[in-house]
Every structure is written in structure tokens, then in C-alpha cells.
């Protein structure tokens, strides 16, 4: 049973294979051939039947003719024999043989003698006997090789019997009238032959087309490799062209893939270029270090901060340019053991903040194939300086605040103890407390001014300022102090001073600081002179004293916050070290400047310049 099912399946498979699309053309060809063959056989059978019928008809016609001729000739022969008219008989027989195309026509006596014959040479009886023995036989008909032989018995009255033998060829004109069928037959055979040739040719050609058709069906099913769709080039020109088209398609696919890859590479290249340009534009230094501690990339900022050229940095050992071992070790560690951690190192290349304080941030760069380290270099010099200044400022401010506060607390306690039994001491303590409170107020005010300057909120409130009135107020304020120290305070004003567009309070603060400092650091019986000169575009105010002077190394630093010259005479005078810093800031905000010329132990000259323009920058 199983073998039967298998056989059926095999048969179905064969039929299915046979009925596949690529065999349809062969089937059609086969069916046409069969139809033509059937028609051809049918025609052949028809012709054969016609020929047979024609033959039979011819035979019957011949027999009928022979019979008719024989009957007529037999009667005539009996009469002529009876009348002994041999010459007439022989003439009639000869005429019958000639006219009816008889193969044999003779009159034979029972003894075999031939009385008359279509061929006169065959006559054996020259003279007719009077009588002879023998009777006539029955009429017979025989056929042999397309010849019909008929014997007619004759009864000659008074003489005896005889026999008329007539033989005639059956007319073999069987093909007569069959020419159209023969022509059709020939044409059909020729057509069949042509069809067969065409089929052979078409089958050869169609094999290639069938293979191409099959490849097309496979190509439509899914994405297939083009090379698997190629067909045998021996299958014909179509197969060659098909393979050529496939080759072109493959070429197009390859070119498209190449274009895609090229586009991808170009896009990546553009991305890389954009990334490199962005890295190049970074204000911070950026260095990429490989596992071998070689620098793969360094941006220009890194080159500037490391004081080298980019070309020198690339492919160089990182330790050649970064001398701090902590940075190098961090970069090495980051390369060997990639983590998300980072290492921050702040270093001063040559130990001074002048050249810069650099902050190195080392981070690993994760990559599949290798570990790299990224070093970000930041110039934090100014931040460090500002931080140090802030710390110093806070320390100095705390000191400046603590000193008067300590004095105030001390004299308050003293006043509380002396208030009942020593009113004079109490008054003295209260006076000191008052002075220290004012000092504290000044320090707090100056610290606030410095804080405003540091915070950038030190705003000018410009207005028309009459400089002569301002200077008179300064003179009035410091006149008593000068007289107490027996110092000559002199203001040399021009006849007319312009009106300034400035912040009255801030300018006043700066002038008070300059004149106050001159009086503070000028010993008794000294001179403090204030000269004012007006140029076309600026006012020049000189504060000249005959004080202790300023050492050369201190001249630039005295304008820094809380800085006080390292002179014992300066230390004896109370001061916060903020006055000149504030004065310079104020004047610079007005677009002017303060400079100093000094000679130690002889005196100093502070030169203040202010622009006259109404709309100062």
C-alpha cells in the first residue's frame, strides 16, 4: 500500500513537473504535432480508401467492357464461323483487339487451333474445317496480374463448338483524380516536417527562455543573490543577454552599495571634520592619549597651554609635554583600566601663577578595541588668583573688623567699671569707643564698596559735579586734621573749573582717600599740596605730600585690596588698605586713572586724571 502511494506521488510529481510552466510550450508543440499527425493519417486513410475503391471500380469496368465486347464479338464470331467467313472474322477480331486495347482476343477451336487472333501471326488454322468435335465450355473469367481473362463459348451451327478468349489489362489508373489529396498529403507532410524543425529550434530557444522565466520567478520570491539567477549561456542568445543584464544589475547593485558606503564614509568624514573643528575651537585644551601613551590628538588650545605646537604634540609621548607625574599616571591608568572615573590635577608648571595654573582632568575614552584617555586642560590661573585674593580679603576684613570691635568691647568694660568713681576715665573711654565705632563704620563702608566692585554692582550715578565745591568740601573736612598735625594743606585751584559729568559721591570718596592718605603718612610740620590743572580734554589733580614715601616694590601693590606697605611707619598708622584700591576703581570707572610718583622719605605725588567729556565712557 505504501509503495502504491509512493508510486502515485511519484507520478503526480512527474505530472506536476511535466505541467510546469516551463513545459507548457513543449506541450502545445506536442499537441499541435499530434493534431497535424492525426489529420495526416486521416488523409492517408482517405487516399488509401479512394485508391482501393478506384481499383475495384476499374476492375469492374474492365470486366464489364470485356464482357460486353466478348458477348458482341461472340455472336458475330458464331455468325461468321457459321458462314465460314474467316477473313471477316479475323478482321473483326483484329479490329476488336485494336479498338478495345485487348491484350488477347482470339477464337480457339476445341483442339487448340486458333482460327482468328488480334495478332495475325498467332493464327494456326488457315482454313476452317467443316466440322470438329467438342462442345463449347461454360463462360469463365479469370484474373491474373491486372489482367482479366474471359472465355466465351461459341456454338457454330453445323460445325461444332469453339471458344472466344479475350484478355484485357485492368486499367491501373487508380491515382487518377487523387492529385489534390496527394498534394494535401505532401503539404501536410512538409508542414509537419517544418513544424518538427521549428519545434526543435523553438525547443532549443525556449529552454533558455524557460530558464530565464524560472530565474525570474525565483527572483520575485525574495532577495536572492544575483549570481544564483544566472543561466547556462549555452542555452542561447537570450541566456547570454540575460546573464549580461544580471551582470549589469549586479554592477548597479555593487555601485549602489559602493555609493552607499562612500556616502556613509563621506558623512562620517564630514561628522569627523565637524567634530574636529569643534574640538579645535574649544577654549580648553583637549588631548587624546592612546594605550602606548602617545598623543593621538591635541587641539590648538592644548598646544598653547602646553606652550608647544600641535604638530609637535601629535604622536609624541605625553610625558614630554606634561611633566606632572600624577597626570601621566592617571592617563596611563585610564588607558589600562577604562572606568567612568576621572582624575583632576591642578599644577603650576614652574611654581608661579604668572605662567599659569593648569587643571588637568583625565578621563577614559571607552572604545571597543582599545582604551584611550582624554585629558582636558583648563587655565585656572585667574580663578586661583581670585580665590587667593578672596581668602586674603576675608582674612584682612576680619582683622580690620576685629581690631575696633576689640577696642570697643575693652573700653565699654572699662567705662562700666569707672562710671561710678571716675567720670573722667569714663569720658575718655567713651571718646575712644566713639572713634573706634567711626573707624568700624569706615571699614565696613569700604568693605562694602570693595564688595560691590568685586561683584560688578559698583554703579555710577552720574550728575553734574562742580569740582570747585567738591574740593572746598574736602579742604573743609581735612583742615582741622591738618592743623592738628601742623601740616600745611594747600589747594591750588585755577580761576575756573569745568563742571564734570560724574558720580559726586564716588569722586568725593576718591579725593578724600587721596588727601586723607597724604595727611596720614605725612609727619608733623609737613606739606600737602593739591594742584588742579585743566587741559582741553581732561582734568589733572595732583596730591603732593612730603610724607614717608613709597618703596619702588610697593608702588604697584598699594592699589590692591588690603595691601599696606612693609614700612614700620605705615604699620603705626591705622588703615584698612582699601582706600587706594577703591579710589583707583572709582576713577577708572569714570574713564580716568591714578598713578603715583614717589621717593622714599621725601614724599609722594598721586596724579589723578579725569576726562572732561560730558558723556564719559
Amino acid at each position, binding site marked *: 500500500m505504501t509503495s502504491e502511494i509512493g508510486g502515485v506521488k511519484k507520478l503526480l510529481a512527474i505530472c506536476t513537473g511535466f505541467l510546469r510552466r516551463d513545459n507548457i510550450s513543449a506541450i502545445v508543440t506536442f499537441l499541435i504535432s499530434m493534431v497535424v499527425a492525426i489529420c495526416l493519417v486521416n488523409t492517408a486513410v482517405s487516399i488509401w480508401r479512394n485508391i482501393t475503391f478506384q481499383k475495384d471500380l476499374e476492375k469492374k469496368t474492365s470486366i464489364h467492357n470485356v464482357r460486353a465486347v466478348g458477348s458482341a464479338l461472340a455472336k458475330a464470331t458464331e455468325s461468321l464461323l457459321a458462314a465460314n467467313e474467316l477473313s471477316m472474322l479475323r478482321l473483326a477480331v483484329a479490329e476488336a483487339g485494336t479498338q478495345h486495347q485487348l491484350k488477347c482476343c482470339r477464337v480457339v477451336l476445341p483442339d487448340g487451333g486458333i482460327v482468328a487472333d488480334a495478332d495475325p501471326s498467332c493464327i494456326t488454322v488457315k482454313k476452317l474445317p467443316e466440322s470438329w468435335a467438342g462442345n463449347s465450355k461454360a463462360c469463365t473469367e479469370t484474373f491474373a496480374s491486372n489482367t482479366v481473362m474471359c472465355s466465351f463459348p461459341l456454338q457454330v451451327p453445323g460445325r461444332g463448338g469453339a471458344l472466344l478468349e479475350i484478355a484485357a489489362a485492368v486499367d491501373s489508373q487508380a491515382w487518377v483524380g487523387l492529385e489534390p489529396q496527394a498534394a494535401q498529403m505532401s503539404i501536410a507532410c512538409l508542414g509537419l516536417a517544418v513544424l518538427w524543425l521549428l519545434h526543435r529550434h523553438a525547443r532549443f530557444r525556449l529552454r533558455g527562455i524557460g530558464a530565464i522565466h524560472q530565474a525570474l520567478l525565483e527572483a520575485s520570491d525574495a532577495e536572492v543573490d544575483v549570481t544564483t539567477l544566472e543561466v547556462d549561456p549555452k542555452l542561447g542568445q537570450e541566456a547570454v543577454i540575460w546573464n549580461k543584464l544580471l551582470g549589469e544589475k549586479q554592477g548597479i547593485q555593487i555601485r549602489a552599495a559602493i555609493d552607499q558606503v562612500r556616502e556613509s564614509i563621506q558623512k562620517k568624514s564630514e561628522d569627523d571634520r565637524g567634530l574636529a573643528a569643534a574640538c579645535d575651537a574649544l577654549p580648553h585644551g583637549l588631548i587624546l592619549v592612546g594605550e602606548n601613551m602617545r598623543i593621538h590628538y591635541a587641539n590648538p588650545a592644548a598646544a598653547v597651554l602646553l606652550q608647544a605646537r600641535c604638530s609637535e604634540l601629535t604622536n609624541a609621548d605625553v610625558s614630554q609635554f606634561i611633566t606632572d607625574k600624577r597626570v601621566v599616571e592617571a592617563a596611563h591608568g585610564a588607558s589600562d583600566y577604562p572606568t567612568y572615573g576621572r582624575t583632576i590635577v591642578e599644577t603650576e608648571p614652574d611654581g608661579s601663577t*604668572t605662567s599659569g595654573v593648569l587643571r588637568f582632568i583625565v578621563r577614559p575614552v571607552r572604545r571597543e578595541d582599545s582604551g584611550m584617555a582624554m585629558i582636558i586642560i583648563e587655565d585656572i590661573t585667574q580663578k586661583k588668583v581670585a580665590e587667593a585674593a578672596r581668602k586674603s580679603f576675608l582674612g584682612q576684613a576680619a582683622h580690620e573688623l576685629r581690631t575696633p570691635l576689640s577696642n570697643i568691647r575693652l573700653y565699654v568694660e572699662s567705662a562700666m567699671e569707672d562710671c561710678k568713681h571716675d567720670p573722667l576715665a569714663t569720658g575718655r573711654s567713651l571718646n575712644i569707643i566713639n572713634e573706634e565705632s567711626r573707624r568700624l563704620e569706615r571699614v565696613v563702608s569700604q568693605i562694602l564698596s570693595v564688595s560691590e566692585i568685586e561683584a560688578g554692582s559698583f554703579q555710577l550715578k552720574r550728575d553734574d559735579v562742580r569740582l570747585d565745591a567738591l574740593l572746598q568740601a574736602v579742604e573743609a573736612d581735612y583742615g582741622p586734621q591738618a592743623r592738628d598735625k601742623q601740616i600745611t594743606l594747600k589747594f591750588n585751584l585755577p580761576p575756573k573749573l569745568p563742571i564734570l559729568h560724574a558720580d559726586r559721591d564716588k569722586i568725593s570718596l576718591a579725593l578724600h582717600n587721596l588727601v586723607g592718605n597724604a595727611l596720614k603718612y605725612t609727619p608733623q610740620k609737613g606739606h600737602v599740596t593739591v594742584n588742579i590743572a585743566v587741559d582741553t580734554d581732561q582734568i589733572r589733580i595732583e596730591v603732593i605730600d612730603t610724607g614717608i614715601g613709597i618703596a619702588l616694590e610697593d608702588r604697584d601693590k598699594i592699589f590692591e585690596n588690603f595691601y599696606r606697605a612693609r614700612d614700620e611707619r605705615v604699620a603705626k598708622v591705622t588703615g584698612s588698605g582699601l582706600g587706594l584700591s577703591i579710589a583707583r576703581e572709582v576713577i577708572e*570707572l569714570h*574713564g580716568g586713572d591714578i598713578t603715583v610718583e614717589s621717593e622714599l622719605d621725601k614724599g609722594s605725588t598721586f596724579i589723578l586724571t579725569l576726562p572732561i567729556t560730558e558723556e564719559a*565712557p
Partner: protein
Amino acid sequence: MTVQMREYGAVTVVKLDGPLTDTDADKLKAELLEIIGRTLGRVALDLSAVSYVDSKGLEALVDVTHQLHQSGKALKLCAANETLRQVLALTDLSTQFEHFEDANSAIRSFL
């Protein structure tokens, strides 16, 4: 033109006094580049007392700022007057520099 340099912490403020013209441009450029190399670019140029800049002066300033561009920075100009600002705007060079109202703001920008 006179050039006055003053240190504010780690920042060097270069104050120019007078018109920046042909004769002074090369000298100023050399000085600025020297300071930039020494201070790693911590420089600000105070133009409050500069009334006029000619083409040579502009060229010097542009050369210096291009030098700083290579390290992602730009020359910081302080207190440029209206004339200078217009010159920079008309020559389409304004974007080549960082501008500050005064030197103090420029110094703070380094923090």
C-alpha cells in the same frame, strides 16, 4: 601712542593712549603676542583712551585675535568708544573680538 601694562591678578590689561596708527601697530602686535605667549592668552586691551584706529592698527588687532582664535579664544577689547565700534562694525570685524564695557568686566571674564 603709549602703551601701559597693568597686572590684575593673572590678567594683563594693556591700556593704549593715543591713536593706533601705522607706526605703532607693529610694535603693539609684537608686544601683545609676547604677552599672550607668556600669560597663555590672559590679556585684555583697554581702548578707552584710543580715539582712532587706522587700517594698519586694525590689521594688527585682527592678527592678534586670529592668533588667539587658534586656541578657541579672542582678543578682549575694553571700553572702545563709539568711533572704534563703528569702524569695527563697518569693516565687519566686530565679531572677531570680545567686547567689554570696561577692563573690570574683561578681567572677570577670565574667572
